[in-house]
C-alpha cells in the first residue's frame, strides 16, 4: 500500500506484535496525569486498564475513553489540548483495537460451532429437500433474521429463543403436511371476467349497453389510487393452507398512458391500505386499448390468499385530492367499455379522458384474470420418491428410512445410535395406536426440528482447524446456492474428493457456478453486501419527491441485482461496480435516469452517455437512496456507506451527544446540508473523523435523497434562492476531486483496496462470521489470485470457493 486512499483506513491496520500500543504516548501525555498512579480521578486508572482487547475485560471503559475524547469532554478545558491530528490518530488506534477485539470475540469458534440457517436458506433447503414451497416471511412464520452490516447469516447474530423453536416446529409441521398431504391436492382453475369483478355480474350494465346499441364487452377500468380484488379466498371454494403452492396467472388487459406520462403499471399483492399493496407481481401493461394482450406468469402463493390489484403511478386519484372523483369512478354505475364510449355511457361522471380520447391518468383496462394451481412439477414430486415407508414396514425398515432421510437433511452420515431418540418417539406414537406413517411423521418432525438441520454444525468435540468433506460440501452449497448440497456434491464429499489432492474441489465449484441455482447467490449476496434492506426504510416525502413511487423503489432495488448478474454472467472486472457506461434498467428507471425509453418492458441492458452522469453502483438510485431519511440526503451516512461497502471499514462511531443540526431559520440565507455540516466540523474533535468520512459522501451531493440529478439544493426556509450544490472534495491523502465522476476515478486507482474489501465481504458471507486480522494471510492469497484473474467477478467468487480459508473452520 504505497499510495493510501485514506490515512484513517490505513491506520486501522495496526500491527499486532508491536510492543507498545501506538496510542500510549497520547494517553501518557494527556490522560494518565489525572487517571494514573498519582491521581485517580473518577476511580479510573488508564495505565492499569487491560490491554488485552481480545478478552475485552475493560472494553466498556476503553469505549468510554474514546467517547470522552471524541466528544471533546476530555482532556478538560484547562489542560493542554491535543491537535486535530492527534485526536484523529488516537481515536482511530483505540477504535481499531476495540473493534479487533470485538471481531475476534464474534468470530470465536467453540470446538463445535452452530450457525443457524437464515429464513431464506430455510426456504430454499426445504424446497430442495422435499420439493415443498413454504414462505417463512409470512406473518406468524419464522422470525426475521437480525443483520450485521447487512449480512443476515452471521452465526453470532443468529441466536435462538423459545419463539424460534415454536416457529421451527410449526414450519416443520407445515412442510411435512405439504410434502405428504392426507389426500392429494388437485389443481383448480378460476377465471373472473371484468363483469364479475367490477359489475357484480354485469347484467344491469348489459341492459344499459344494449339500450345504446353498444356491442363492445364490459371492461374494468382500474385507476391509480384505489386497490381492487385480484384474488379472494372464497373464489376457489373451500381453500386452506394445503392449497398453497405455485399458481399460474393469466391476465387479459391493456393500458392507458397519458401523453408524456407514465406507462400503466399493474401491481398485484396483499392490500396494505385503500390505495396500496405489496408487490408480489409487477407488470408494465404496454398493450394499447384496441390490442389487449394476455400476460402470463407463475407465482408462489400461501393460501388462502387475499390479493389486490393496484395501478402504481405518481399521479393518483386519492381520497384527499379526489374523494368525489374516486367514489364516482368506483361505483357499479360507472360503466366502461372503450375510451370512445365513456362520455356517452357516463355523461355526468368525472373525466378520465380528454377531448382527443387521451387518458388523464395511467390506467389499466382489465378483461379477465385467471388463476390456476397449485401446480407441482415432476422434479418436485421426484424429490419425495422413496421417502415414505410402506404401511407394513418393520421397525428395521423404519429405521433404515429414517436414516436415509436424516443423512439428506443433516447433510452428513448419521449413525443409528444418533437416531434412537427419534425412533423412540415413533415407537411411543405406535404404542398409543397411531398408524405407521402418522407415527413416522413424528420422527420426521424430530429430524426436521433438530439442531442438525436448522444449524450448520461444524467441528467435533476434539478441536480441529480443517473442515471435513461433509462440512465443506455444506459450506460451499450455502455459499453458492443458499441451500443444501445436491447428490453430486454429497457423493464427492463421501468419496473424500473435496479436501483431498487433485481437482475435486475445483471441479465441484465449477459445476456449481454453472448450475442455475447460482442465481440464489446472485439474488442474496449483493443485497446483503450493499445493505439494500435500508432502501425505503424511510419512505420519501411525497410532497418533496413527487416522482417517487413504490414501483420506482422496487425497480431501483432490482436494478442492483440485475447489474450484479450481468457483471457475474459476463465475468467482468470489479471495476464495473465503480464505473461503467451501462446499466440494466426497465422503462421506469430509464425515465428516472433521463434515458430514451426502451421499446420493451422489463429489465434490459442500456447505455449511458456522459451527460447522463451515471455508471456503476454508486450512482444508482437505490444506492443513493438507501442512506437518505425520507426528506433529505445525508452525506455523512453516504460516506459511511462508501467506507463500509467499498473499503470494508466502519469509521469510529460519533459521540453520543452531538448538537443537532437546526432547521434553517427563516430569516437567514438558505444553506445546503454541506454548509451546515462544514460549520459543524470546524470543531477539532468533529473534524478529526469527519474529514475522513464526509468527502466520500459529499462527492455525491449532485444527487438528492432519491438519487435524482440536481445542481441546486432545495431548501424550503430561508432567504434568497436555493443554493448550488458542491460535490468537490479532497481525500485525506490530498488527492482532490471535482465531482462524483472524478471521485470514482480515484476509487479506480484504489481498486486493490476495493478488491480486498470485496473479498472480505464474500468471506464473511461464506464463513458466516466476522473476518479478523488472523485471516489476513488467507485473504491476501485470494487477493493475489484475483489479481491474476484480472479482477473478474466470477473468477473472484471461484477463488474464494476454492481458497484455503473456505476449507478452514
Amino acid at each position, binding site marked *: 500500500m504505497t499510495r493510501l486512499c485514506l490515512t484513517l483506513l490505513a491506520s486501522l491496520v495496526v500491527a499486532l506484535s508491536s510492543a507498545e500500543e501506538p496510542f500510549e504516548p497520547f494517553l501518557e501525555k494527556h490522560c494518565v496525569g489525572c487517571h494514573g498512579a498519582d491521581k485517580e480521578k473518577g476511580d479510573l486508572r488508564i495505565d492499569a486498564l487491560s490491554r488485552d482487547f481480545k478478552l475485552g475485560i475493560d472494553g466498556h471503559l476503553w469505549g468510554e475513553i474514546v467517547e470522552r475524547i471524541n466528544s471533546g469532554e476530555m482532556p478538560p478545558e484547562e489542560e493542554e489540548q491535543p491537535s486535530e491530528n492527534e485526536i484523529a490518530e488516537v481515536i482511530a488506534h483505540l477504535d481499531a483495537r476495540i473493534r479487533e477485539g470485538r471481531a475476534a470475540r464474534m468470530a470465536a469458534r*467453540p470446538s*463445535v460451532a452452530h450457525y443457524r440457517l437464515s429464513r431464506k436458506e430455510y426456504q430454499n433447503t426445504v424446497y430442495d429437500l422435499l420439493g415443498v414451497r413454504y414462505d417463512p416471511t409470512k406473518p406468524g412464520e419464522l422470525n426475521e433474521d437480525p443483520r450485521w452490516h447487512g449480512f443476515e447469516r452471521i*452465526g453470532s447474530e443468529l441466536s*435462538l429463543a*423459545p419463539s424460534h423453536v415454536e416457529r421451527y416446529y410449526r414450519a416443520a409441521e407445515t412442510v411435512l403436511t405439504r410434502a405428504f398431504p392426507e389426500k392429494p391436492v388437485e389443481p383448480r382453475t378460476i377465471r373472473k371476467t371484468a363483469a364479475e369483478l367490477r359489475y357484480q355480474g354485469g347484467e344491469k350494465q348489459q341492459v344499459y349497453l344494449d339500450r345504446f346499441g353498444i356491442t363492445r364487452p364490459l371492461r374494468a377500468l382500474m385507476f391509480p389510487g384505489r386497490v381492487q380484488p385480484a384474488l379472494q379466498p372464497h373464489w376457489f371454494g373451500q381453500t386452506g393452507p394445503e392449497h398453497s403452492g405455485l399458481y399460474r396467472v393469466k391476465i387479459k388487459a391493456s393500458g392507458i398512458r397519458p401523453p408524456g406520462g407514465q406507462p400503466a403499471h399493474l401491481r398485484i399483492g396483499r392490500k396494505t391500505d385503500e390505495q396500496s399493496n405489496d408487490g408480489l407481481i409487477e407488470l408494465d401493461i404496454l398493450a394499447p386499448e384496441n390490442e389487449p394482450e394476455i400476460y402470463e406468469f407463475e407465482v408462489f402463493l400461501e393460501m388462502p390468499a387475499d390479493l389486490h390489484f393496484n395501478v402504481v403511478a405518481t399521479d393518483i386519484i386519492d381520497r384527499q385530492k379526489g374523494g368525489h372523483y374516486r367514489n364516482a369512478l368506483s361505483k357499479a354505475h360507472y360503466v366502461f367499455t372503450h375510451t370512445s364510449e365513456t362520455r356517452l355511457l357516463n355523461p355526468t361522471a368525472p373525466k378520465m379522458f380528454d377531448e382527443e380520447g387521451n387518458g388523464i391518468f395511467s390506467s389499466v383496462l382489465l378483461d379477465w384474470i385467471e388463476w390456476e394451481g397449485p401446480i407441482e412439477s415432476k422434479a418436485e414430486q421426484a424429490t419425495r420418491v422413496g421417502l415414505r415407508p410402506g404401511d407394513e414396514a418393520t421397525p428395521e425398515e423404519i429405521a433404515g428410512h429414517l436414516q436415509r432421510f436424516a443423512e439428506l437433511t443433516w447433510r452428513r452420515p448419521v449413525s443409528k445410535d444418533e437416531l434412537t431418540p427419534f425412533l423412540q418417539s415413533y415407537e411411543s406414537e405406535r404404542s398409543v395406536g397411531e398408524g405407521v406413517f402418522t407415527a413416522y411423521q413424528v420422527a420426521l418432525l424430530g429430524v426436521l426440528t433438530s439442531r442438525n438441520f436448522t444449524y450448520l454444525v461444524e467441528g467435533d468435540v476434539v478441536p480441529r482447524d480443517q473442515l471435513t468433506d461433509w462440512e465443506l460440501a455444506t459450506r460451499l452449497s450455502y455459499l453458492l446456492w443458499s441451500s443444501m448440497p445436491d447428490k453430486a456434491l454429497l457423493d464427492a464429499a463421501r468419496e473424500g474428493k473435496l479436501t483431498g489432492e487433485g481437482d475435486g474441489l475445483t471441479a465441484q465449484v465449477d459445476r456449481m457456478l454453472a448450475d442455475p441455482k447460482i442465481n440464489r447467490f446472485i439474488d442474496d449476496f449483493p443485497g446483503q453486501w450493499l445493505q439494500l434492506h435500508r432502501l425505503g426504510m424511510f419512505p420519501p416525502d411525497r410532497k418533496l419527491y413527487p416522482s417517487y413511487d413504490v414501483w420506482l423503489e422496487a425497480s431501483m432495488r432490482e436494478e442492483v441485482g440485475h447489474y450484479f448478474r450481468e457483471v457475474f454472467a459476463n465475468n467482468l472486472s470489479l471495476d464495473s461496480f465503480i464505473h461503467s457506461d451501462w446499466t440494466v434498467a426497465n422503462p421506469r428507471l430509464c425515465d428516472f435516469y433521463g434515458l430514451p425509453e426502451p421499446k420493451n418492458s422489463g429489465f434490459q441492458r442500456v447505455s449511458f452517455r456522459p451527460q447522463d452522469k451515471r455508471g456503476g453502483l454508486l450512482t444508482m438510485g437505490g444506492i443513493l437512496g438507501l442512506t437518505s431519511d*425520507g426528506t433529505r440526503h445525508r452525506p455523512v451516512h453516504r460516506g459511511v456507506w462508501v467506507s463500509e461497502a467499498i473499503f470494508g471499514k466502519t469509521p469510529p462511531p460519533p459521540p453520543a451527544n452531538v*448538537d443537532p443540526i437546526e*432547521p434553517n431559520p427563516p430569516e437567514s440565507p438558505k444553506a445546503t446540508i454541506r454548509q451546515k455540516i462544514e460549520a459543524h466540523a470546524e470543531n477539532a474533535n468533529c473534524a478529526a473523523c469527519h474529514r475522513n468520512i464526509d468527502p466520500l459522501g459529499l462527492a455525491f451531493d449532485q444527487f438528492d435523497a432519491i438519487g435524482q440529478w440536481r445542481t441546486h439544493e432545495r431548501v424550503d426556509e430561508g432567504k434568497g434562492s436555493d443554493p448550488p450544490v458542491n460535490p468537490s472534495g479532497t481525500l485525506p491523502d490530498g488527492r482532490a476531486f471535482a465531482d462524483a465522476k472524478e471521485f470514482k476515478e480515484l476509487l479506480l486507482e484504489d481498486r486493490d483496496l476495493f478488491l480486498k474489501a470485496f473479498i472480505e465481504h464474500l468471506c464473511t458471507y461464506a464463513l458466516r462470521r466476522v473476518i479478523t486480522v488472523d485471516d489476513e494471510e488467507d485473504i491476501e492469497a485470494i487477493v493475489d489470485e484475483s489479481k491474476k484473474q484480472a479482477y473478474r467477478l466470477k473468477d473472484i467468487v471461484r477463488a474464494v470457493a476454492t481458497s484455503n480459508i473456505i476449507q478452514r473452520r
Partner: protein
Amino acid sequence: MSNIQTQSWLIDRRHALRGLGSFIALPLLDCMNSARASEVPKPKRSVFIYIPNGVNTLDYQITTPGDDYTFSKSLSPLEKHRSIVTPISGLHHPGGLGHHHNCQKIWLTGGKLGPTDRNTISVDQKMAEVTSPQTRFHSLEIANKGESLAWTPDGIRLPGTSRSSEIFAYLFEEPKSGTAAQRRALRRKGSVLDSNLEEVRKLEKKMGAEDKGRLAQYLNAVRETEIRTQRADAWLDVPRPSIAEADRKRTNRDVPQTQAGDYFRAMYDLIVLAFQTDATRVATFSSGVEGQGLPIPELGISQSRHELSHHNGDPGHMEKLTQSDTFAVEQFSYFLSRLAETKDLDGRPLIETTMALFGSGMAYGHSHGNANLPTVLAGGAGLGLKHGRHFDLNEGHFDGYKLDDPGHHYRLCGRPANTEAHMSNLLLTMAQKMGVETDHFGDSNRELDLG
C-alpha cells in the same frame, strides 16, 4: 399435570365466581385447591405504548415541577386523569443517545446499540417471566407494523400482531380442532422436543465443561418451549373466557389503519379485554415504527409521523405534529378511561392493578434528539404508584425551560441535563412493582421514587 402443579398456579377462586361483563368461567382446577388459596395476591399488570418520532416538544413540555403543574397543549387530554397520571421529564437511555431511530429498539430494554452490540431483554418480558405462570398467554405484543417492542433475553425482537380480529381469535377463540386433537398435537410436540433434547444432551455430555456456545442457548430455548407446551396442555382444560356481545363487537373486527382513531381504540379495547379476562398480564403496543408512524387522515394529516417530525422548522408542519401528538394522547386518555370504568374480578377498577407507560424513545425528532424523553406513567395505585405531580428529573440540573428559545430547548432534548436520570431506572422501578426480584435493569443506577 402434576409437574406443573406448583404454588405459582394458584388461581383466585373468586375469579371463577364473579361474572362482570366478560368473565372467565374457570372450572375447579386442582391447582386452585390449596390451603393458601385465599392469600393469593391480586394480579399485577403492565402495558407499554410507544409513539414514534418524539413529539413537538415545544407544545408538549410541562414547565413546572411538582403538584402544582399545568398540562401542556398536547398533554391536555390527560387533565381529567390528573389524579392517576404522572408526566415524567428528563429521562434518557444513555445507549440511545446519537442513535436516531434505533431508539425504538431499546425503549424497553435499556440495551446498547452498536454494530456488535446485542439487544437485551425488554422489561415487559422480564415481567412476563413472573406473571406468565398464572395466565394462558405469556404476553401480548401488538404492533401496527409487525415490529413489537418486546425483546427476548437473547436480544431477539418478538413479532407483533397488527390486526384486531387476529388478536381476538388468538386470545379468545377456541381452536376449531377441539380439545382432544389439540392435546394430541401438544403431546406430539412434547415428544418431538424431547427427542431433540436427548440428542443434544448426548453431545453435551461428550463436550464436558468447555464453551458450548450456541448449544447451551439451543438447550435453554428447547427446554423453555417444552415448559410452555406443558402449560398449554394444562390450559386446555380451562375453557376460554366468554366475551360479552358488546365487547366482542368492539374488538373482533378489522379496522384499517387509515382510520387511525378507530384503530387505536380497537387496540386499546383489546388490551382492556385481555386484562379483564386475565388472558395475560403484560402487553406492549407499538403504534408505529420510526419510519412509518400513522398519518391521521381524519384530521387531514396525510404525512407519517416521521415526515412531520422532520418539520425543518416549518410552522405548518409543527402544528400538524402537535395535532398528531395530541391525538395520540387523546387515544391514551380513552384507554385510561376504559381501564378506570372496567371492573377487575374483585370489583375494583382495572386501572388500580394496571401500570400504563406511554412515551417515545425520541424527544425532538427533527434532529433525532434522544434525551428528555416524552414519558407518561399512569395507573397502578394498587401496586403502590402515587400520582398527581409532574415528576421532573431535569430539576436542579438546568436553569429552567425556555420554550421561547427553541434551540435551547432542543438542546435539552438532545443532551441530557441530568446524566443520572436513566430511563432504565423507571423500567427497573416498574419491574419491581410487578414483583420482579431484581435491583437492576438495563443500565439502571437507582430506583425512582414513584410513591
